[in-house]
């Protein structure tokens, strides 16, 4: 028997859902999300692995929630945002201080390519929470309220993260030397 693990299973079906069935159905999706979120295959693998080991131990509790996948995805998000992960991120951020060199803009297409490279570089240099908000909104398609629920903050706070992150990305499109700012992680 195979299960299609949809977001809204009935309570009875949810309680019958085993951990392995959940993993079989949702591991590719969780792995893809972690890859986009972290931008680092090894880190994504570590994050998903850590979360699934924890989820295995707590599966009876997790499967009783309304949306098991959302719960586990929130665990992935939290694991990534945890300071242990930020420790590694900070090392990368400091190593990259000074910003990537700008590419010459010689035509519209080249300009788009250069802007994309600048945005990609700046995305790596945002605070972890700012980047997470962008991934949840533009990749996962969540609303401010849903993102706030996942991150444990208000929709207003999500909007602030979003606005400041976009401002920095826009700045990256205009300037060739985006440097990290303090004041994000207090």
């Amino acid at each position: 028997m195979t299960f299609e693990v949809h977001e809204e299973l009935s309570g009875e079906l949810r309680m019958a859902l085993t951990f392995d069935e959940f993993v079989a159905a949702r591991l590719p999706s969780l792995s893809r999300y972690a890859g986009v979120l972290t931008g680092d295959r090894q880190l994504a693998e570590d994050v998903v692995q850590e979360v699934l080991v924890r989820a295995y131990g707590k599966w009876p509790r997790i499967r009783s929630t309304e949306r098991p996948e959302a719960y586990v995805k929130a665990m992935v998000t939290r694991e990534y945002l945890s300071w242990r992960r930020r420790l590694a991120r900070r090392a990368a951020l400091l190593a990259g201080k000074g910003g990537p060199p700008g590419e010459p803009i010689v035509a519209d297409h080249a300009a788009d390519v250069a802007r994309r490279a600048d945005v990609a570089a700046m995305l790596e240099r945002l605070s972890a929470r700012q980047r997470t908000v962008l991934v949840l909104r533009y990749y996962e398609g969540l609303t401010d309220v849903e993102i706030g629920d996942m991150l444990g903050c208000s929709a207003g706070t999500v909007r602030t993260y979003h606005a400041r992150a976009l401002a920095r990305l826009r700045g990256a499109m205009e300037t060739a030397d985006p440097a990290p700012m303090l004041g994000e992680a207090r």
Partner: protein
Amino acid sequence: MNVETILAEVLADRERHTPDPDEVLRRVSARTARRVPHRLVVALAAVVVLVLAAAVAAVVLQRRSEPPADPGEPVRPVQEVRSDLRFGWLPDDLAAAASREFGTQGDGPPAKQPYLISSVYAVDEAPVLGEPGWQSFEVGGRPGRIVSRPTRSIADWRLPSGRWAHLEVGYTDHLEPGNRQPGVENDLRRMAASATETEPTTTTARFALPYLPPGCVVVSVGRGTYDVEDDTVEISRIPPDAERVDTTQDGIVDDLWSQQRSMFGVLTVIWTPGTDGFDRTGAGLVREAPVQGLAAWHDSSGLRLLVPGFHGGILELRRLTDRVTGPELHKVAEGLRWTGP
């Protein structure tokens, strides 16, 4: 092409960082001591065996002896006290958001508007006064510092409680040409004068840590950090050669430690109720010296110490770097004192 469109493309491109699900599953299966399925589909066949294995493990763990009783000596609780700021006055361009309570994570209006971020420093934290570019100022006779740039203005001042407040006002799109604004230093002074600290809330861990390695400080205490009911305590140890002061893109010299002390994290202590998440036969687990009379294991990396059955839960200590040694980790666990719910 606008930034949202480019961002969507950039994020889609990051799918190339997706790890191999089969490899993830192999590693998860190894850590949960389960049969390793060759393909995802095969995992479905192992369900019954796994449920039985988990049940057996749970029974065995429940038969473990109770941990030794606490000697009853007074111990200092491990706790984090949080509070926020409320403002009695806001400038007109922030007044629309005046009904909201601004939180420690920063709260403010959407894009293309002025933003406000406020927070209260941790109990034992304070900004470094006298850094270049900052001016001294007072709020109600208490000391403070303020800096203003075309991009934003920042103030820190001591509250009546003794803790320090942080306030930053800027423009969400200030990096865009044409969106620069003049400094709002006077507004900031008035906002600071009108600010009051909210009633503090305290999160107390269900255990105390009488022993921590030299130089280590608790920076965070949380409940439900990794799971629904866990207690998680995060501990930092600032290296002697750490960079203390940095200059931001808009030329503000600021103290790195007070803002990002948690970046120097070295140790996490987690207690999770229930023991069903532990399988002593898990691959890579190695038995080590008992902790408080209870059997203890470390993983193959030597970075995680696990003590199942500790007051009905699993005690887990993780050292994040070699700046905390394995013996130190064990000593922290041995000294840990249960203080209860």
